[in-house]
């Protein structure tokens, strides 16, 4: 039969089966016909559906033994379909369905089918999915599954699926012992039931050390293989920060309260209760910027006159009711503002984002990575991991090395140089925040450091003076509006085109924007929302070339008295 003929007769067949299905014919003959069609193309969802209808009907009319036989035949047929196309969605889905309905399922047979499939293609995710289902239903012991990942990783360690599976099994099999000191604030809850919901995602130290060795073997063997590096990152861990109110700030002039959280919250839906001098206040919480719904900083305006009298002392408490946490803040007589905050250490602020490992472990990991770097001085994964380890160990102490490694990274991986610049900016900002914490000042200055992006701006809630001159910034993003105390903004010599984040900053007086890329008057629109702005330096921006710019600016920003063009 020629190919065309085959095709034509198939279409005829299809038409037939369509009619039969409509007519509700659910007999074994229809089963035969669909089998014939599916065996030439197993990716035909409609036909599988029809088959399921037939099988469900047969279930009602046949004896149990017969049903078992029919389903076993179905499994054999599916096997032949999978041989034809081992990644057929329809076949795998149908196999799941059949396995679940089989009166006497033979799970070991299914497992060995999966093993065979995975030995042919160890990244066949259909098979991985199916296998997970089989393991779950048949209750294969976790230890046996871990052995299975051992085997797969042994035969080919470039396999995300196996590494990932391993990361889900290890915490079940070797949970972190509860007495071990954990930098994460949530104590792990050892549960005898081994249920993953209540389980800590950490692994006991003894096993962790073995895993470090295993994964090191992988990345020393092939340092360009990402899967091992990703698993390594997982091993090093990442703590969840405790959910808390990190800062409450109150300003008498604006009659405004700003609250900073340890994680972004939705200002509209977060359950906050403001108590002022023992009286709950009904206030409207809002984000600092309309384009920025989930924000780590929320603000609210107090009813006019409640705290405006400078001779009064006020006690303020903000409750985060759903998290059972709160923070007090006292506004004393004669003071125009007040705040209450944690004096956060670097450990809590940024290190936990990178790893929760103990210093000794990190130190030895850093050592072996440095060893690899000696052999492979241009390996980006190794460089990046070293940077992360250094940050987790001592961000300020390793600052110089970190910056040098970033430079190498940008050279060896130019495709991702922007990513490295952003990451480097993030680390520079973190370091500057730490230094500011130690110095207890409200001035934040990073100049001439090639910053490309701004982050951690919630940490700068109390900053009054910021100097970001001579960097590569292109915008002041909406998050910038979190700088509620900002009075002076210096961003000379950047590439700023957009001032979106300079929005409703109540205390902002000076904006120095010399030599940037502001090209249209509309880009300056956000400044109009800052009531106290009086000095604006726009020299060296394209916008100054526009006709009538001075008069239009005066109209837009009436409060500005000192305009430099």
């Amino acid at each position, binding site marked *: 039969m020629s190919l065309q003929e085959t095709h034509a007769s198939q279409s005829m067949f299809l038409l037939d089966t369509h009619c039969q299905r409509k007519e509700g014919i659910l007999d074994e003959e229809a089963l035969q016909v669909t089998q014939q069609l599916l065996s030439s193309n197993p990716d035909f969802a409609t036909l599988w559906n029809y088959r399921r209808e037939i099988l469900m009907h047969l279930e009602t009319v046949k004896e149990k033994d017969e049903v078992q036989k029919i389903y076993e035949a179905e499994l054999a047929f599916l096997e032949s379909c999978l041989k034809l196309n081992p990644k057929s969605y329809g076949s795998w889905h149908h196999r799941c369905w059949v396995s679940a309905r089989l009166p006497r399922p033979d799970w070991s047979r299914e497992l060995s089918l999966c093993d065979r499939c995975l030995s042919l293609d160890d990244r066949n995710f259909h098979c991985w999915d199916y296998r997970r289902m089989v393991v779950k239903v048949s209750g294969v012991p976790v230890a046996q599954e871990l052995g299975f990942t051992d085997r797969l990783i042994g035969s080919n360690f470039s396999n995300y699926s196996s590494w990932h599976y391993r990361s889900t099994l290890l915490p079940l099999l070797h949970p972190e012992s509860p007495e071990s000191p954990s930098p994460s604030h949530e104590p792990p809850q050892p549960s005898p039931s081994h249920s993953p919901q209540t389980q800590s995602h950490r692994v006991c130290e003894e096993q962790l050390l073995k895993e470090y060795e295993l994964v090191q*073997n992988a990345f020393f063997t092939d340092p360009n293989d990402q899967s091992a590096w990703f698993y390594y990152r997982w091993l090093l861990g990442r703590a969840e920060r405790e959910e808390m109110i990190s800062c409450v700030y109150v300003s008498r002039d604006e009659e405004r309260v700003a609250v900073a959280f340890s994680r972004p919250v939705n200002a509209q839906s977060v359950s906050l209760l403001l108590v002022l001098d023992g009286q709950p206040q009904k206030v409207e919480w809002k984000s600092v910027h309309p384009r920025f719904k989930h924000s780590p900083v929320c603000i609210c305006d107090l009813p006019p006159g409640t705290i405006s009298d400078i001779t009064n002392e006020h006690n303020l408490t903000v409750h985060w009711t759903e998290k059972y946490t709160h923070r007090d803040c006292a506004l004393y007589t004669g003071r125009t503002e007040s705040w209450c905050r944690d004096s956060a250490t670097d450990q809590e602020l940024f290190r936990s984002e990178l790893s929760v490992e103990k210093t000794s472990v990190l130190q030895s990991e850093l050592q072996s990575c440095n*060893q690899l770097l000696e052999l492979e001085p241009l390996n980006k994964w190794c460089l990046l991991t070293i940077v992360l380890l250094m940050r987790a160990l001592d961000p300020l102490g390793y600052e110089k090395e970190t910056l040098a490694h970033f430079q190498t990274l940008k050279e060896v991986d130019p495709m991702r140089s922007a990513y490295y610049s952003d990451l480097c900016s993030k680390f520079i900002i973190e370091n500057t925040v730490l230094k500011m914490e130690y110095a207890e000042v409200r001035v934040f200055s990073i100049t001439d450091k090639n910053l490309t992006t701004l982050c951690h701006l919630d940490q700068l809630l109390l900053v009054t003076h910021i100097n970001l001159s001579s960097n590569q910034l292109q915008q002041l993003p909406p998050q910038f509006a979190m700088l509620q105390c900002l009075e002076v903004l210096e961003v000379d010599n950047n590439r700023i085109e957009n001032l979106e984040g300079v929005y409703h900053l109540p205390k902002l007086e000076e904006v120095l924007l010399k030599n940037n890329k502001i090209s249209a008057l509309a880009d300056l629109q956000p400044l109009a929302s800052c009531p106290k702005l009086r000095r604006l330096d726009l020299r060296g921006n394209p916008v100054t070339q526009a006709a009538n710019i001075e008069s239009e600016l005066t109209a837009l920003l009436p409060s500005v008295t000192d305009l430099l063009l």
Partner: protein
Amino acid sequence: MAAEELPSEFDVVILGTGLPESVVAAACSRVGQRVLHLDRRSYYAANWASFTFNGLLSWIQQYQEEPQPKEVQDWSSLLDEGEELVYLSNPDSASISNLQVFCFTSEEDEEEAQSSDLPNPTEEKAVNEDTDVKPSADSNEEATTEKQETVGGAEEEQLQVTPTEGEEQDTDKPHLSTAQSQLEPTRKRITYAHLVKEGRRFNIDLVSKLMYSRGSLVDLLIKSNVSRYAEFKNVTRILTYRNGNVEQVPCSRADVFASRQLSVVEKRKLMRFLTSCMEETEEHQAYSGRPYLEFLCDQKLGDNLQHFLLHSIAMVTEDTPIEEGLAATRHFLRSLGRYGNTPFLFPLYGLGEIPQCFCRMCAVFGGIYCLRHSVDCLVVDKDTNRCKAVIDNRGQRISCSHFVVEDSYVGKKAAAPRRLLSRAVLITDGSVLPSDSDQQVSMVTIPPVAARYPVVKMVELCPSTMTCIPGTYLVHLTCQSAGSAYEDLAPVVTRCFHTPDSPDQENRPSVLWCVYFNMVDGSGVELEGHGLPSNVYVCSGLDSTLGHEYAIRQAELIFQKILPEEDFCPPAPNPEDIIYDGENPSTPAGEEDEDGAGEEGKREQSQTQE
């Protein structure tokens, strides 16, 4: 075969069924040539054959017997005007020499053996045609290289070469066997009787080679579809003998990852070296002409890696030049990972299957096969100096345009000393490196055990290769000869195994039975010439390399000389794709035909072995 007359006209007549001859036969038949393929032996594959245990015993016996001088018959009556006869030489029985057999297991079941305390002396037969080997010299040498002083001496001598004339050797035998049974009181041993009883389940190769996964043999098997006639198994690990131990060589990425003997830094260095040597670099060129070892030394790889790279991956010697070393390394690496974690494949049922597969292909396309059938002489046209016909040993004149012959029929006019290969075949009771799985197929490289000794390649086959019985391993050792096979290989055997010569190595596998012999290394024999007509081509037989590159290249060259215009082994159609025109299904490529030929061959072989 019945003494029927053969057809008297063929395009190509081929004498000898070794690998290159069989490939030429298949290639010619495949493109429509009429092929007659003969072998004087009663089995296929000549010196490339595999035997059952009993088959091997009869093969040994055959070589022990004095070759009977064949009387030369005068066939000049069959000549026409202007023709002359060129007689082929007597088949060269010296292609196998220095045959020595040792049985270290008890003859009968355990109890009987203990009561009789004498392993049947007839089984400890040793045959040697070159009787000039001096046992005493040999044992001295042993004593200097190994701590055998205590046991050496007497035993060494009595195990040593037993001349066929049979002198005084039997004196110490009881001593030996009692020592043996005292050493191994507990282990349930496989007896000689058991080996004979289960002998049919052995497939013992005369040559020991492996197929490189990207070598020319595998490519040819795939290209020609001959692969469908055989099944293969991966060699599962590469081992090496080093500092008195057998170690696994990490060669694939997975091996390197899993290796416990390498530090992570060594892992990186090894992987980096393997990756970098795939490309020709300026650094390589700078070493041009200097030894590969020198290059390896300068890479600061450390002793471990240097050993692995030189001996197990490149499999070259310390003075091999860099070009050759790198080429060998690349060949190894290219073959890696195609079918498994090592570069090698081994055919189930032994290497003797491969020539038979090609013969089968030849038969499918109409080639005619006769075993126990030889050619006595060639009919040569005096004017053109071309072979017009051959006259077989029954006096039938068969005309042909081309004649291909195995080198043993070509006279030893070239007086150049022939190179030899030393071979040993061992049946042992355990693997040289036990592991989780007892079904490992291992390639073991053994650097020279001492100065003057050759590099030995050892292949250890497990029962799942269908070459030996459960509970045993079949071990092949091969090297280029420096002395007799026994002299070359016995030192390696005593180091790697537990034998009466190495009674202190109780933790090593015991040798149950072994045979040593030398084979002629034919690499170097010319395809043409030898004073033969221009349309006669000589297949040179075996070579000492591990792969089949030499034999396949030779077959291809011969084919191109015969049929310069034709494609070499184009894919054979699948039987199910063959379209029969009309109602005449008797087209040439009938599967029945093919089965007939193959089965017949095997039947003949097994008959002669019983």
